[in-house]
């Protein structure tokens, strides 16, 4: 055995047993399991979940409390549908956590979440609250049903610990409009020192444009088709040779300024570029 190579534990595929499933509606579920390595995730990191006989997909770690890990999934295709409807006791595979995650910075953070992107921000939100910092959360969804964390974030126990602004495109919950539009209004007050965003790239790009000329730092979590997750296949490349799987998925505003394809192009499984 080559002594210069160290076994890297998170690379290894581990079998996990589904211990609990929280079904919000037929399209959204949080799947709970135990895994010591995933439990130590930094907010914003992701895992690869293997659904045997089907696929393996990247999902943000949305839960790491009381010994339980969780991933929150939206049903958008075959693999996510199987995962949404997984039963307690079923076995899945997990690799990771992978990627850099968010750096928890700032005393007055604005967190902008789009749709299921909120799953990747949930741990960050709690980290701020534990540090006695009050984050402002803008959570944009199409409809009120798609805001699966509304109940959690509007709890009485959160009063004073979190400023929460739900936004829906159809106006069925909170303000009518887009998360980026509400973020724009809030940013005009200049009360924030750091912006975090996770969601559809169009939204991220809007937020990036809002902050790019302002003197405040920002971190964005990007999504790409992930295959290896360990920085060798190149599938998730952006900009001047950055890998979303390993260098990301979180990139700072200053790094993204150099990434010409941010907000414009992504890649299919074949590696072919397509317009976002």
């Amino acid at each position: 055995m080559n002594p210069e190579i160290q076994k890297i534990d998170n690379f290894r595929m581990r079998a996990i047993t589904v211990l609990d499933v929280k079904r919000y509606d037929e399209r959204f579920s949080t799947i709970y399991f135990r895994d010591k390595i995933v439990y130590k995730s930094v907010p914003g990191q992701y895992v690869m979940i293997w659904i045997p006989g089907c696929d393996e997909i990247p999902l943000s770690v949305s839960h790491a409390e009381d010994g339980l890990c969780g991933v929150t999934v939206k049903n958008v295709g075959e693999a996510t549908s199987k995962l949404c409807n997984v039963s307690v006791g079923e076995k899945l595979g997990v690799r990771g956590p992978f990627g850099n995650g968010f750096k928890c910075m700032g005393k007055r953070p604005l967190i902008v979440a789009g749709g299921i992107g909120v799953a990747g921000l949930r741990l960050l939100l709690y980290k701020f609250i534990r540090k006695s910092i009050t984050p402002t959360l803008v959570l944009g969804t199409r409809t009120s049903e798609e805001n699966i964390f509304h109940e959690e974030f509007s709890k009485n126990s959160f009063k004073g610990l979190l400023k929460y602004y739900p936004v829906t495109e159809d106006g069925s919950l909170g303000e009518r409009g887009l998360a980026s539009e509400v973020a724009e209004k809030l940013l005009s007050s200049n009360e924030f020192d750091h912006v975090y965003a996770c969601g559809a790239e169009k939204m991220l790009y809007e937020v990036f444009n809002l902050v790019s000329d302002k003197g405040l730092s920002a971190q964005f979590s990007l999504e790409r088709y992930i295959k290896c997750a360990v920085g060798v296949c190149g599938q998730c490349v952006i900009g001047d040779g950055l890998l979303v799987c390993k260098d990301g998925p979180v990139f700072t505003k200053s790094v993204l300024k150099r990434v010409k394809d941010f907000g414009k192009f992504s890649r299919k499984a074949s590696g072919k570029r397509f317009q976002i």
Partner: protein
Amino acid sequence: MLEMNFSLETELAGLKMDNPLMLASGILGLCPSLLKRVASAGAGAVVTKSVGLREREGFPNPTVHVIDSYGLLNAMGLPNPGVEEFLKEFEGEKFQIPIVYSVYGSSPEEYSQVAKKLLSLNPSAFELNLSCPHVREVGSLIGQDPRMVYNVVNSVKSSVNVPVFAKLSPNVTDVLEVAEAAVKAGADAIVAINTVKAMAIDVDIMKPVLGNVYGGLSGPAIKPIAIKIVYDLFENISVPIIGVGGICCWRDAVEFFLAGASAVQIGSGILWRGLNIFGEVLEGLRKYMIEHKFKNVKEIVGAAHK
């Protein structure tokens, strides 16, 4: 002053390289930006991901399975955007180091078609990925049939005026027979070896891990297999050999040179060491050469045979 006339520069089948380390095909080589990142990490030459005539999605995930610290099992399934899209992405890009385009096909004609299209990019060389399924004989690989390998190399050689490397599959009874067929057809160098057929089953889930059930193994586990093949090829063939298989540190690279490789390719090692691996191997190689009073890499090549 030993270091005065000491050099890591080397030349191989007409390619002038600052050092004998190349990026192996299939690792990171999807687009110019990544290849440039590898170049600035210290590689002497880079090889692209294999490109074919048409766009291919590849196999479903899991496509990669890391086996402890010794193996990387993969079944990517030759994903690529197709040669036309590939041309669009690479057009007008300038590289400071030689760039080798890896080509695959399902017939000799397809290989040469792809190679001809890539000529507009001024390739330093072509590397033929012979671990591809046969168009007619289902289940077997082109690289497993010496006759087919001869036809593929011959077809590309007669279509382009650029060095052609044949990358051999170890999944054969007699690698030498395949190598000789490639050399006879005009291959300018032999790349050895491609991944070793392998699979893994998760004992808790009780199913094969890879989406494609089986795949190819790379990493430290296959290095002794590659060393043996390079050693044997060095005794028997007349063209330079590029060694590849499990290089993770400078000792591994030196082992390949001693066995007979004129240059080496690094791939899976990047998984464990990151892109720093190129700098690490170069530094170790430099010290080794100074310590053993080698003035250039060519003096080490095949030294274990003397």
